[in-house]
């Protein structure tokens, strides 16, 4: 998905992969985040826990959260359980 047009959507947060982290003396850590092939400079100051390879949500040039891989799967596992239960209800 092309990175959003310049600030087109106000609350849009786009998930991307951290590919580089540059420490910054002014406490404003910057880095590179890749969005399906497009890399952008992103401020990582608000996600000090982020490491290269992590996924983050980026909004107007700032990472506002790291993405939790386990939680990301939860909706699909829940549906699978329900699917398995449906399968058990043999009438």
């Amino acid at each position, binding site marked *: 998905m092309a990175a959003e047009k310049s*600030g*087109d959507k*106000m609350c849009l947060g786009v*998930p991307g992969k951290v590919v580089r982290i540059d420490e910054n003396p*002014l406490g404003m850590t910057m880095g590179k985040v890749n969005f399906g092939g497009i890399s952008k400079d992103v401020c990582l*100051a608000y996600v000090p826990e982020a490491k290269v390879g992590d996924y983050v949500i980026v909004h107007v040039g700032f990472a*506002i*959260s790291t993405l939790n891989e386990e939680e990301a799967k939860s909706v699909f596992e829940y549906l699978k359980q329900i699917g398995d239960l449906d399968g058990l209800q043999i009438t």
Partner: protein
Amino acid sequence: MKYIDEYRDAETAKKLADMIRSVTTREWTMMEICGGQTHAIVKFGIDHLLPKEITLVHGPGCPVCVTPLEIIDKAVAIAGREEVIFTSFGDMLRVPGSQKDLLKVKSEGGDVRVVYSPLDALKIAQQNPSKKIVFFAVGFETTAPANAMAVWQAREMGVKNFSILASHVLVPPAMEAILSSPAHRVQAFLAAGHVCTVMGYEDYYPIAEKYSSPIVITGFEPVDILQGVYMAVKQLEERRVDVENQYSRAVKREGNVPAKKLLSQVFDVIDRKWRGIGMIPKSGWGLKAEFAEHDAEKVFDVVGIEAQESPLCIAGEIMQGLKKPHECVAFGRECKPEHPLGAPMVSSEGACAAYFHYGRVNA
């Protein structure tokens, strides 16, 4: 793209829609707060997947739409000044002021530039020391940490020619304003995922309890919204009132702690006027006095600008979920994206723009 494609999977969406149908026994009305959610609902036709008993009404979560006319007029006044380079997100340039919009100021020779981030505006300020650079800092809690960092860095680096014209608003007070108006019909909320990514969702428990209104923190993709609706309907059907977190991959209960810390150091909570709704106490952020030299309302003499709304525009009722865009007499006639009467027709997150763009002319 990871964390997007799987949440647009048709099979998963269909399964969730079937689950919603299986638990729905009565009519329910719920409001999605964020304009980004409104656009996903209309774009992917999610409302058409739902049983007819469920009505989704669109909330005030479009930062462009709620920006008061006076702030637009102040922006127009500042942007027209010789010594100013005025920077903003793209959406704000086409929002109609009393006389004109920022695009018109640009066509008349004003230096008005679209930027992707407030840090871009800060760079422009460093590259143009003889000019005064202003950034139009509009948005909800999602965007405020970016603007707070730009102001903080400007002070740390001594970039004195950088200021922001701030119009920040907060979601919880808007929810309370909607829930306390007698005409409202909202029974549950899909709360704005990225607002809660920053702020967490502690503030929502007192609202859920006081107004007996289930609240589900919801993401922006079809699977997110359908699961959010399912969680809300189950609460309503089981007479439960709780705050649940559907968007758990990106939202923690405490939110983003470093972001909230900087917000508290840069902004004060203040009363804010919401376009179409009116003054809501303690519903916005303004720069603290110690950052006055980075506060465009203080740097430039723009006080006392009063403005008149177009009488035809029913933006206020639309943003409170009382009316839908196609119920407006001007929709698609006097009011179109090319010549919008109100901001919801301009913004890419506005309900009217969504209905017009995706051809929703009757429902």
